[in-house]
């Protein structure tokens, strides 16, 4: 039979666990939309971006839920960047395999379209840029055209608001490297968006 003290301790333990779960939920709710946009800009696919965010949330919950809450943000974005990189590498490997297959055809005898080939171009031309309506689309297109490290530094620093140290932790590089990538990203974006901004 449980004594009164044991009962109180168990109750306190349950409440602590509940508080921790609430903290984690609040944290995930605070980052999920920006994390989705970061993943979507990086991989240019809504389904892949959702999978990346879901995997990152699960990984954080499984491995780091017990860590102090102030460590969650750099850890979460480190996981997210790794998932984005995994997705990009899988696509590269897939494009290699598809490149070996000559004239793949469907049942109607038509060539299949390689999803990598039909993905939007990395560097929209001036005409295409003019056609992009609205500041959001223009900025997202310009960010997508950045080299991956510049894109990461810009989105983590500017969009997510991580400081230099946390961005370095999330990107797995030095703080000096973060500053270099971030500055280059700003210069490239200003050059690309000059006419819109």
């Amino acid at each position, binding site marked *: 039979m449980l004594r009164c003290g044991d009962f109180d301790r168990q109750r306190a333990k349950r409440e602590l666990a509940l508080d921790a779960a609430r903290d984690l939920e609040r944290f995930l709710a605070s980052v999920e939309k920006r994390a989705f946009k970061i993943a979507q800009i990086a991989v240019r696919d809504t389904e892949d971006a959702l999978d990346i965010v879901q995997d990152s949330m699960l990984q954080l919950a499984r491995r780091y839920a017990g860590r102090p809450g102030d460590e969650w943000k750099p850890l979460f974005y480190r996981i997210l960047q790794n998932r984005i*990189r995994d997705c990009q*590498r899988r696509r590269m490997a897939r494009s290699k395999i598809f*490149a070996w297959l000559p004239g793949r055809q469907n049942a109607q005898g038509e060539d299949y379209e390689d999803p990598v080939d039909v993905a939007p171009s*990395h560097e929209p031309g001036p005409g295409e840029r003019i056609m992009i309506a609205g500041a959001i689309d223009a*900025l997202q297109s310009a960010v997508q055209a950045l080299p991956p490290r510049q894109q990461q530094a810009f989105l983590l620093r500017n969009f997510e608001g991580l400081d230099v140290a946390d961005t370095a932790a999330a990107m797995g590089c*030095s703080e000096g490297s973060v500053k*270099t990538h971030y500055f280059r990203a700003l210069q490239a974006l200003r050059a690309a968006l000059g006419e819109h901004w």
Partner: protein
Amino acid sequence: MSESDRNLQDFERRSREVLNQGAESIGADVRSRLTQARFKAVEEARKPVAPAAWMRSLLPAGGLAAAVAVALLAWHGSTRLTDLPGGESSRGEALEIVAMTDDYDPLEDDVEFYQWLDSEPEVESVADFAGVG
């Protein structure tokens, strides 16, 4: 603060606002799936840690997976990036993705960079920038 620094700060502020607008305007279906993913993750965090015996039973499979991973890495390393389909742009991006463990890359000759760095509140010295402070 110079005109150039002010322009850069204006650009940073504006781009942050625009990206936030983009994040707030995501569709209801995506929001719903993000919420589901969040609930799933929180549930996962509440689960007790798996017993050690269960982990031990995976050791042989882990060894096999490691061997397969090493073989794949060896194969991947032996393939040439120049064989990738696509133009110079995709090759450059592929190289950058593979070489993402890059590190310190100083802009030694870029005066504008150091002017911008000087205006950054978080940076106290060049030693801080170099990561040695």
